């Protein structure tokens, strides 16, 4: 029996430049509902920019992005706010709010956007913290009092707190040691599976990409130069992909020598 694949996101010919620096130069990509897609690429290739374009945080210069068949590049502020209600995001540096306790960070959307009673929101937040392996005691601390690895877990708990159908992960394991990275990868994998969500992850950590992704796409030179099943990446004949996944200094990928760096 074959499962019919419907598209969650369809990106066509996306262009984005900052001043005279062109970052995205005709990105085409299809993300299917319920799949976990990982976008890999070197530092400064525009992965985070692409993710922010999908989230509507940065406007695209040209091209079309459809989510559930609806064009989102021209959406109004209200439409944007409504769309984001079903999306959870885990940011690269966790982006936790320093002025709030850990549990208040996790319950932020429940309290401030869904106007849930604080007591009930706290119960849910503590459940989500438990799901990522953090105790009730951690919930009462401020983000500055916990380690970087714990902050990532809190950020993950915040992303899944409202059980969204779309999840974005921006470099979820950067700066973490291999053991913590493995724990975070496992948590992401489990959360995406349990929610049945569509997940888009950007990373340059190949072990993360292999563990998290059903499919992997590689961004280079402002375009998606390869996209395929995660299992096929080691055997593909794309020389750019092979150079990247094996971390070879020599190959077709030109190292960025421009002083300006795109996130």
């Amino acid at each position, binding site marked *: 029996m074959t499962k019919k694949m419907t598209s969650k996101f369809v990106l066509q010919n996306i262009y984005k430049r900052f001043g005279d620096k062109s970052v995205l130069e005709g990105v085409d990509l299809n993300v299917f509902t319920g799949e976990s897609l990982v976008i890999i690429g070197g530092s400064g290739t525009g992965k985070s920019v692409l993710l922010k374009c999908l*989230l509507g945080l940065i406007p695209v210069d040209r091209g079309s992005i459809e989510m559930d068949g609806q064009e989102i590049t021209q959406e109004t502020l209200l439409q944007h706010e409504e769309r984001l209600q079903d999306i959870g995001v885990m940011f690269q540096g966790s982006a936790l709010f320093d002025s709030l306790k850990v549990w208040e960070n996790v319950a*932020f959307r429940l309290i401030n956007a869904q106007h849930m009673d604080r007591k009930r929101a706290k119960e849910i937040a503590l459940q989500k913290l438990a799901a990522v392996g953090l105790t009730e005691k951690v919930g009462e601390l401020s983000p500055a009092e916990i380690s970087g690895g714990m902050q990532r877990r809190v950020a993950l708990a915040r992303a899944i707190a409202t059980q969204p159908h779309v999840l974005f992960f921006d470099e979820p394991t950067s700066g973490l040691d291999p053991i913590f990275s493995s724990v975070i990868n496992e948590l992401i994998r489990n959360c995406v599976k349990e929610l049945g969500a569509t997940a888009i992850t950007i990373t340059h950590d190949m072990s993360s990409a292999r563990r998290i992704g059903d499919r992997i796409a590689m961004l280079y030179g402002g375009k998606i130069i390869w996209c395929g099943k995660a299992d096929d990446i080691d055997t593909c004949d794309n020389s750019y992909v092979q150079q990247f996944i094996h971390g070879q200094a020599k190959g077709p990928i030109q190292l960025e020598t421009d002083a300006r760096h795109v996130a």
Partner: protein
Amino acid sequence: MVWALSSIGRVFIEFLASTGRLTLFLANSLVQGLQPPYYFRQMLRQFWEIGYLSLPVVGLTAFFTGMVLALQSYTGFSRFNAEGAIASVVALSMTRELGPVLAGLMISGRIGGAMAAEIGTMRVTEQLDALITLSTNPQKYLIAPRLLAGVTMLPLLVLIADVIGIFGGYIVSVYRLGFNPAIYTKQTFDFIQMGDVTSGLIKAAFFGFIITSMGCYHGFNSKGGAQGVGRATTYAVVSSSILILVANYFLTALLF
């Protein structure tokens, strides 16, 4: 010549563009702030930060300014045998001018800089982006409560500064210069009118708006990491201090 004119034109156009961006930012923040939901916890936090936590610095500034004012006035007025005017000079100076301006400048350094640094750090650490993805408008959640707290707390702080400043003048006049306490108090209240106090409070509300809007605007638009946040903090304090002094002249002329 052409180069000089084009430079002037470029600066002028950039000034107009910046003014336009600031106006749009503030208009959007005010419109967002007027629409529900209202973030009462955020408002209370800002009332506490701007109002209560600024009391020591404003109180000390006003107290010593009132004392210096009494001493300096005595030096000048004693030459014309006009010592009796010291009480009214201290009261009028504090309520009409020194209370709002000094409190405004002190709060600009304490609050304007802190606001720019906090919001700027949120910008460079993607916390503002996180707010948007958590279905919360940053201008409604962060900016509107600060603007409201600035406009309402500054007049209250200035009212307290007026009282403390006049009291400082009283202390020096009575215990250092040997004035009669009852006569000094009577002279203070005989000459001061309600309009003197309210003109100072109106100024304070404007200054509160200037301080919070500069702090929020520069913080919200900061970029480039720690250096960018530092630059935003400097811009916030310098621009609000200058605008307070400029606005003070126009408001004084208007309320004269």
